[in-house]
């Protein structure tokens, strides 16, 4: 089998026609065959090769390592319309629109400052400044509710299922790091 060469680097994607790509038959959406638009109801619609899909949702293949690559465009029935290989292939205004939709789907406020975390009875109580405002939330210990999703990124899921991100643990202050580390 021919080796597949593809990287997650957004600038350059090296991809050859391989046995694998032939078999997978991924339908890539490109600016040439696709027209994205925002509906009056503030949702995303797409026209692919002349066919209109009135509402579609964007699912990232790599929501933590790279949100801008390999984005699956799906209907509400979970059927894949096609895949956007890289957002950068599209014009700026469309990128902005798709970016907004991705942020709508993958909502995880970024924690900018950890104010306090205390643990008791199998739960940790967090107080933090986030990009969504000042928040307090409770996290159940164990079960991977606080986990490293990359070498520096921490994903926190609270009791209700809300998600929060620490973009880079190394950027935390000594005191913040000590508190977060206890929950990891």
């Amino acid at each position: 089998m021919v080796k597949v060469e593809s990287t997650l680097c957004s600038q350059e994607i090296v991809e050859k026609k391989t046995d694998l790509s032939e078999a997978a038959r991924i339908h890539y959406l490109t600016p040439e065959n696709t027209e994205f638009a925002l509906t009056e109801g503030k949702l995303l619609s797409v026209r692919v090769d002349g066919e209109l899909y009135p509402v579609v949702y964007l699912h990232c293949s790599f929501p933590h390592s790279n949100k801008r690559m390999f984005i699956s465009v799906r209907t509400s029935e979970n059927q894949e319309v096609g895949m956007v290989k890289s957002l950068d292939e599209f014009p700026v205004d469309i990128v902005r629109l798709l970016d907004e939709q991705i942020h709508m789907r993958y909502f995880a406020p970024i924690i900018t400052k950890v104010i306090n975390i205390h643990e008791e009875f199998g739960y940790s109580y967090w107080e933090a400044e986030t990009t969504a405002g000042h928040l307090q939330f409770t996290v159940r210990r164990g079960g991977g509710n606080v986990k490293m999703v990359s070498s520096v990124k921490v994903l926190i899921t609270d009791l209700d299922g809300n998600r929060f991100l620490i973009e880079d643990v190394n950027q935390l202050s000594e005191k913040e790091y000590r508190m977060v580390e206890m929950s990891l």
Partner: protein
Amino acid sequence: MNLNYELSEQDQLAARLAVGERIHYCVPADLSLEGKRTLGYFVVGKEKWAYIQNGELIESCRIADACDYNVVPLIGNAILEATQDHTKRLIVRISMQHVARFAYIAQILNYMAEGSKIRIYNNETEMVCPRCGGGLLPGTRLCPKCMNKAAVLKRLLDVSKSHWKKLSLGLFILFLTLVVALTGPYFQKLLVNSSLQPQPGESPSLSLFFLAIFGMLFGLAAGELLNVAKGRVMATVSSTIAADLRKLVYDKIQSLSLGFLTSQRAGDLMNRIMADTGRIQHLIQEIFTTAIYQFIMLVSVTFLLLNTDWKLALIVLVPAPLVAYLQITIWRRVLNRLFRKQWQVNDKANSYLHDVLSGIRVVKMFGKESREIKRFRQYNSEYAAAAVHAEKIYSILAPVSTYLLQLGTYFVLLVGCHMILKGTLNLGELVQFTGYASMIFGPLAWLMNMPRWIANAVIAIDRVFSVIDEEPEILDTKHSVKHSIHGNVQFCGVTFGYKSYEPVLKNLNFEIKPGEMIGLVGHSGSGKSTLINLVSRFYDVNEGEILIDGMDIRKIQQEDLRSQIGVVLQETLLFSGSIIENIRYSKPEATMEEVIQAAKIANAHDFIIQLPDGYDTKLEENGNNLSGGERQRITIARAVLHNPRILILDEATASLDIDTESVIQEALQRIMKSRTTIAIAHRLSTLRNADRLLVLEKGKIAEIGTHRELMQRKGIYYNLTMAQRNIG
């Protein structure tokens, strides 16, 4: 569930202007489209809905202008959608906290849009703390505001109460040990002052010399004997208390619902039962053998030192707070982190090892041995580096603090000798003083480590109690009864979702007659396994009811219900033990003959009898010394031994080859006679004997009928059958 929040006066005014005088429902819609948390409310009036934010109307619309109101859960948030003018539109965005609430609101809006009667089962109660009125943690009776560490220790005390006699005995021995230990320096002083260096004008006394020597010897011997007695008593008490706790946790885990248990890692629960209770046992032992002893020792020795000579006493005690400060700071700032890091790396390496060793076949198959060796080497050196780092600092800290503490003794000798020369102190008193002084270092050093082990123990206690406090979701009530099942199963308007806002089964209505075999067919994720989970009552329905012989399943005692249901799953779970023990699991009192009968019915007898150890064959972990088909036949024997009235087969033969499947199918045919059977199978030929087939599609019944009827209808079942035939 609260669907009618109170609005501020300003919001109320805006809401009334938008939807009319009467507000029927009002729930928080707390997320703006830009992703900011807001204090917005979604308000439903008689004919209109409105979205209000800080006293301002953001949007409002007539309810009947749209249809298909629906909550779409996204990742970490959700949106309320509806169809208006044949296109979907977004109405509001919400955080996950209010998704369940909005699922109800969407239903209500749909009823209102259709103009039909609102019919919702709002039985999700929001638990509140009886003391402060605040919300409780989901699934527990814990109020985050009303918990404290003292309360934790008190609960431990409550568990220990039943062992108070032995605990008191332990305490009594502890006091005796203390008194004996404190006599040591007194006899030393007596020895010096009476015989070694008597006071001027006094002659050495031989009788006092022997008394002092005997006193010291007695102190040593009695002290050791008492220590042995104390250790034995406390080991017994702490082990029994820990055993009580283990029992409490284990009993609770068994009674908890499947939903909670599947959300927890087995290893984590095992730790709570074994490691955490072990830590608590250690805590009790430590408190009653060392903690109280060291504390009283500290107080009494300090008193004796101050009483003997307060100036010398201060010299001894001055370095102590300094050392304590040094220790605590280094522990908090450096060592704590380093040790935690070391444990984390250790945990990672352990789970990596567990993964790789249990999946060694895959490693070999892909020829990735060298990659795995490299990865392990990396974990191993990471762990070694972390350990060396932590130990390096610890190895410096320990001698430095001991040295600093003992520095006091040198100063005592210095000042003491000077006082003897001045004649203000005699040698005996100095010996007694240094004796007491050396006794104080133990308690001081121990006291410095106390915060650390108390913190560790409290963590263990709250981990254990967090399981004990967990509430099972499925409960028997006082009105639950035993019921001998005939086999009629009826689903009446059943709607169920593992999360109430994401229904997996929607408004199911059907009846299975006693002795009938029903085949469940549908794509993956269509709700087949969920349906059989409901029949076994692993979960309670959100809406509607399931009736067995006309009786609501929630009124039948769980144990009684499940003892009359036999389940055979695709994955064969066997326990370590002999074959007979495994078959007997469903009916421990079964006779050997009954076991053989069950094995015969399951077509298992012939292969078991050929094994060198027959029914006494010990099974390895999960029966790995048997083939897949053999293991499955044992699970079938286990399922039929207790003669269940309802039989559930969830892909029971999916992973087997055709020959083995036909042997097992034949066995199942024999078992299914006169029993209500619900069978799931992807391989549709497996269901050829079903009386009726029920086709599920996205949680709804799409088709129901016999094989012939469904083939004639040429619907989903027909397509599935034809697709499989084509593959075949």
